[in-house]
């Protein structure tokens, strides 16, 4: 983001439906060529944000630019973006070819360019031979590809995807994740996609914007979001985590209610109430007394064990809270309920989050 113009620039955008604030003063810049995910639970405003970029909803306040051009109030047919709709919204009365041609025909693109671009798009999503079928004669994955081709054939500057994989079953979803990533690299267009599935967001995108209750809480790479969540909500929403109540003692140390100390960096002022996020898979279990007390360990007692095949999940009682510890590749049954243990982690695995 040096001199280049942002693909999408959202500036203080608010959207109100009657009295309900769907999107609350969001600022966001999405870079050219980026694969960006808007992530959040249902009703968090992510879809409304996407619809405002598409022009299907208009912002109540704020400005919205696409490659520098103000488009906030422009109708959808006057924006250089195309959308892959949630349930694809393929025209049921048209064939695959007619669906894909639709946008080009509306812009009066004529043969031979029309035929050439449609053929290219069909080839890109591997739908050759399906041109004359109707959407209801296609599988879910094929419909998804038609929706992609129908949007990409227009060579939009930004492609918007609303829960693009939501209607597919798990196996197909994982395949399509890879396919979408490859496709994005191939066409080099900015992809903005909306999902409530945090794993999907982590796996596919270069950057993620986490939303909740209309607000954009944090924007960052998947690694930043996962390892350095800025708030309790983000820590809890992305992956599983243990949140341990604490208060800040110094910029490098927090103190739990029972007096135990955890080394963790924080910019919060001394004395403020925070939570420490500890990812279950970053925590190890050891017999009591074998780990050094260096601010990266806590004493506890095994309370419950869940065997998952590829992993074992321990619930460890530490003080008044229960900490989940996830252990993979374990041989035998090293711990039993009631065992006195110490949990420890690598320095830096504990992240301080504000409320």
């Amino acid at each position, binding site marked *: 983001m040096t001199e280049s113009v942002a693909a999408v620039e959202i500036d203080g955008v608010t959207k109100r439906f009657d009295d309900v604030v769907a999107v609350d003063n969001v600022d966001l810049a999405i870079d050219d060529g980026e694969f960006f995910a808007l992530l959040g639970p249902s009703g968090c405003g992510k879809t409304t944000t996407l619809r405002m970029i598409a022009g299907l909803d208009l912002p109540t306040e704020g400005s919205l630019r696409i490659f520098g051009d103000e488009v906030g109030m422009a109708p959808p047919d006057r924006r250089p973006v195309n959308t892959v709709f949630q349930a694809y919204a*393929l*025209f049921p009365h048209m064939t695959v070819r007619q669906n894909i041609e639709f946008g080009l025909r*509306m812009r009066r693109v004529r043969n031979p360019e029309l035929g050439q671009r449609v053929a290219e798009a069909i080839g890109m999503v591997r739908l050759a031979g399906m041109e004359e079928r109707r959407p209801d004669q296609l599988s879910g994955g094929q419909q998804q590809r038609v929706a992609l081709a129908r949007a990409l054939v227009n060579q939009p500057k930004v492609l918007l995807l609303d829960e693009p994989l939501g209607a597919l079953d798990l196996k197909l979803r994982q395949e399509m994740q890879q396919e979408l990533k490859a496709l994005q690299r191939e066409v080099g267009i900015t992809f903005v996609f909306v999902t409530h599935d945090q794993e999907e967001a982590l796996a596919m995108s270069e950057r993620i914007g986490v939303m909740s209750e209309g607000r954009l809480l944090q924007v960052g790479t998947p690694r930043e979001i996962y390892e350095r969540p800025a708030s309790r909500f983000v820590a809890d929403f992305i992956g599983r985590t243990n949140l341990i109540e604490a208060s800040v003692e110094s910029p490098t140390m927090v103190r739990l209610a029972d007096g135990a100390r955890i080394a963790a960096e924080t910019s919060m002022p001394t004395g403020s109430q925070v939570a420490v996020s500890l990812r279950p898979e970053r925590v190890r279990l050891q017999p009591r007394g074998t780990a050094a007390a260096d601010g990266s360990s806590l004493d506890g007692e095994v309370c419950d064990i869940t065997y998952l095949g590829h992993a074992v999940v321990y619930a460890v009682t530490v003080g008044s809270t229960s900490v989940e510890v996830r252990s993979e590749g374990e041989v035998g049954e090293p711990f039993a309920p009631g065992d006195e243990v110490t949990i420890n982690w690598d320095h830096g695995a504990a992240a301080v989050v504000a409320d």
Partner: protein
Amino acid sequence: MQPAGGRPVNSGASGEEAAARAKRRQGVLLASPGALYLLIFFVVPLVLISVYSFATRTSTGRTALSGWNLESYRDIGDNVILGIIGRSAWLATLTTVLCIAVGYPFAYYLATRPRHVRAVLLVLVMIPFWTNGLVRVFAIRFLLGSNGPASALSESLGLGTFRILFTPTAVTIGMVYGFLTLMVLPLYVALERMDWSLTEAARDLYASGSKAFWKVTLPLTKSGIVAGSVLVFVPSFGSYVVPDILGGAKTLLIGSYIASQFRDARNYPLGAALSVLLILAMLLAVALNQRSGSGAEGGGRPRLRRRGRAGGEAETVTAAAS
């Protein structure tokens, strides 16, 4: 799930048969009152009409049930009668087209209101429908009459007396008013089922608002237009009350003509033959509707079937109203 020997298997098989038999018996019981009613009051008269259409009219105006012939059907070829049929068909077509023109925007408006508003508006649409048809037609007659408010208004504007009653225009106004609900209901059903994300997709793919309507909304609600057209065209083709009250003698239509054959001219065979023709035309229209319903859109067959049922409901409502 306990394997209790061979017994459960045997009783299971015969139990299945017994259940199927019971289901069939239940079906017969449920259908028979309606079937019986239709047999006595619909099928039997229909057969009688068909039989009469082949009978002979004696010189005294009686109908002789002998000497079966096709004379009455030949009489239909008479220019006067063909003219009446043509005029009826034209008026029915005009009524249908006007009903679409008025009904579609209205149904669109209805279908795009919030759910609770829709329920209220639908009842409002139905109220004239539940009102006695004769009363409504006489109300229109008063409205359009030379002593009525329309005339008074035109006189006060200096346009002279309003002479519209007993013209085809009056008949058309009356018929559009009378049959509009039959058009609005199937259109409403089709539009209410419309997936609006499809029009959004069209807008997203560079279609203007009106292009999105012509390319997506209209084709996807075609089944409603077809169903509504059949529901309006068929009864307006054979309509009798409205042309009789609003049309006067100048606009003789097939419905009135048939009535006059039975009442005044005492030509039962010709009246019966024309009735048979009308019924055949109606069956043809319904058959065409069915075909376009199942063949037009590759997608959503269950959807279309549901639409068809809604049309059927509207049909029963008409039957009850008239």
